[in-house]
């Protein structure tokens, strides 16, 4: 609506507040602001009355108090004497851990299933459609419980591995699948730096070598590009890249004396190696396979969104199918696939809050579960919980906006 200049200046009548385009919007907003303020004041006064009646106040001091409960799977040092804040940090790290793991595997499942749904093979197509429909139409909570039940009710107890003729045996004598979790070999170093701790410096060295390899392969690709631009012939880079990835890291690991700590039965339970708890596995696997079904649909839609004419035009120019895929179809399909993929990652992070149903100690289970119940600080805990998820969501959406803007197709 355009604002028309009224000839009769200065002749202000109250009705103009509503019927003059210059004031109407302001009037309405003022009314909305007043109504909103009244509602908030009403809610706040209720809150204050209720808190006074219950003898409570709003305070975040409880975060510094001793938590007083144990957490079975932690990424940082924690014991029952640590503070509630530290318990919350353990929960945050656990949330991020399971979300990260699930994002990686869900992408793998989803891309595989999405590509296979477009396979020329009829049977594979139908099988993948079945997978997608089954997982999309059943609540993720039920999947988490089903997989958790497999972990706890079907897998044998550690005691089944005992004796001369045990009921269960370890996979290749390396890994044990028990109802207390999966035990896999854990690496440790016998030489090198910082052996007193848990070899932190050695791990930094390993990561540095891997980053060096990454830079090295980038350089190889860049030089291949340069050579192609200059002469037209693209040198083969596969073997050089494989060598750059594997040779340095193998040398370094050998030099540091890498050994594997293989889990073994000690007393009533397994010891040594790395224990991945049943709740983590259940949550991880259920989230990946459930979200994978949604990602499969995104991938399929993305590939189908590139019109047949594009493939044909590329083929008519003489490009081989692999190049048609990598130079023409994928760059266009990714524009369609990536935004919903990122919102699926967001969904995984939010759905990881279902950890509370299987007892995995994520932020919802620590801060929103045990801490809330023990301290009775419902309002504070729930607010902090929401704040955490909100920050994660905003970060992911901000990233998505940046991506979308940078990938937008230029059109008239």
């Amino acid at each position: 609506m355009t604002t028309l200049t009224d000839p009769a200046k200065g002749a202000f009548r109250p009705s103009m507040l509503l019927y003059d385009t210059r004031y109407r919007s302001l009037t309405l907003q003022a009314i909305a602001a007043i109504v909103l303020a009244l509602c908030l004041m009403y809610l706040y006064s209720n809150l204050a009355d209720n808190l006074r009646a219950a003898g409570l106040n709003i305070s975040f001091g409880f975060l510094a108090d001793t938590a007083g409960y144990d957490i079975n799977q932690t990424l940082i040092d924690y014991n029952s004497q640590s503070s509630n804040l530290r318990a919350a940090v353990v929960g945050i790290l656990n949330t991020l851990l399971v979300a990260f793991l699930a994002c990686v595997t869900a992408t793998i499942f989803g891309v595989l299933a999405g590509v296979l749904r477009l396979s020329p093979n009829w049977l594979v197509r139908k099988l993948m459609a079945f997978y997608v429909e089954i997982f999309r139409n059943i609540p993720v909570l039920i999947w988490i419980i089903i997989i958790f039940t497999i972990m706890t009710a079907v897998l044998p107890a550690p005691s089944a591995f005992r004796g001369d003729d045990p009921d269960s045996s370890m996979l290749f004598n390396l890994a044990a699948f028990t109802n207390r979790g999966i035990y896999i070999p854990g690496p440790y170093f016998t030489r090198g730096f910082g052996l007193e701790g848990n070899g932190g410096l050695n791990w930094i060295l390993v990561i540095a070598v891997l980053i060096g390899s990454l830079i090295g392969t980038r350089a190889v690709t860049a030089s291949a590009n340069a050579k192609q631009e200059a002469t037209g012939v693209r040198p083969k880079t596969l073997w050089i890249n494989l060598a750059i990835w594997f040779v340095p890291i193998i040398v370094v690991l050998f030099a540091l004396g890498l050994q594997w700590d293989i889990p073994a039965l000690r007393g009533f339970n397994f010891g040594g190696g790395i224990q991945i708890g049943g709740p983590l596995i259940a949550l991880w696997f259920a989230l990946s396979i459930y979200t994978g079904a949604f990602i499969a649909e995104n991938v399929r839609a993305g590939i189908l969104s590139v019109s047949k004419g594009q493939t044909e035009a590329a083929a008519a120019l003489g490009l081989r199918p692999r190049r048609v895929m990598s130079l023409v179809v994928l760059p266009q399909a990714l524009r369609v696939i990536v935004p919903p993929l990122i919102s699926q990652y967001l969904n995984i992070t939010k759905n990881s809050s279902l950890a509370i149903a299987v007892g995995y100690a994520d932020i919802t289970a620590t801060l929103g579960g045990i801490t809330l119940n023990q301290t009775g600080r419902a309002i504070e805990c729930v607010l902090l919980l929401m704040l955490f998820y909100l920050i994660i969501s905003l970060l992911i959406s901000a990233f998505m906006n940046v991506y979308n803007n940078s990938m937008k197709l230029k059109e008239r």
Partner: protein
Amino acid sequence: MSDTHAESIPFVRETTLPQAAPPTAERGVYKWGRENLFATPANALLTLVSIYVIYVVLSAILPWVLNGVWNAGSLSECREILAGTRGGCFAVLVDRWEQLFFGFKYPSDQLWRPTLTLVLFFFAVAPVLFFDLPRKLLAFTAVFPFLAYWLIWGGPILVPIVALVGVGAGYVVYSRLVAQSFAGGFFGGIAAAAVVWFLGGYLVDATTGPSSLLDAVPSRDLGGYMLNFMLGVTCVSLSVPIGIALALGRQSSMPLIKWLSVIFIEFIRGVPLITLLFVASVMLAYFFPPNSTVDLFLRVVIMITMFSSAYIAEVIRGGLAALPKGQYEAADSLGLDYAQSMRLIILPQALKISIPGIVNIAVGLFKDTTLVSVISMFDLVGMIRGPILASTDWNGVYWELLGFAALLFFVVCYGISQYSQWLERRLATDHR
């Protein structure tokens, strides 16, 4: 045959070649199999792997289902009957079907009430889902919520009648006034409904007696699959109007309205549903007036409705954005005001485009209603994990129960998503 070389122009064909059948290698099962199953060696390998996967899955599930026990009193009885052979103990479903569907507290002699409500629900929802049905059926849809409330919760029949009369009065006032001004109609309608409810409240208080037709059932006695269904249906239908308002608010040219809508939508979409359920179970009560008791069911409905309305608002915003700008301009140029152009021109089209998206949100929300089991409400999942698996008779019957729950959800969700796809195809062919 080949009389058409370059030098032989001009050429005119005198006879028409008939359609010939393709060569055998290009026909029938042979061609189908070659192209679809064994096109390349890798493809053939994939086929064999698929067949093996299907074999493994079926050989695990089929005997278990076919050899299942349907008639036993407990898991140990089941095991006796099976005598070591593999088979499911489906007797638990026969034994506990009431609990699975209706929870463990709903009076068993009253189960016809929720069942009847479900049947009526199908009649009420049909005209909403299928545009071809006569529009007059919508009258029943309008009455249904009040009828359903009375059937499920029971109690004095005056309560739903007063509520219905209030809404009816509001609608009459609205339709009288809306021709002059939408705002007048809207607020007039609300005022009329409020007056009727206020007066009706006295009437209900005055006549409350023990002589209600249906026994009152408190909300905390609801449970099982019925609870999932009720939460899903109630929250989705409540959140559509709120979602419309939020979507329009987000498009508004008034900064205050726009930013309020954006903050609400992005806040709700940024947090997991479970935190909102925590709000419902431990925090929301603090915001109601002191000494009022708002039961958990209602608090959960409030939070889930907020949750789904934010998502539905985003779907509707997509529908609004999909309309060509010319529609807005045409409406303006005809001299329609904002409310009129939205009500008569924009929303009817935008909502139609949005229906498949809204249906998908509804499916997602229906699946998410299982989360209420985390705040100890006894929905289907809550019933299975709580009273049934904890009972001495059925402790350990995981697969039968979880499989049954999965099947129930699959049937409903798959059905709805098939409907959504059908609708999408139909809307695509509709001349818009």
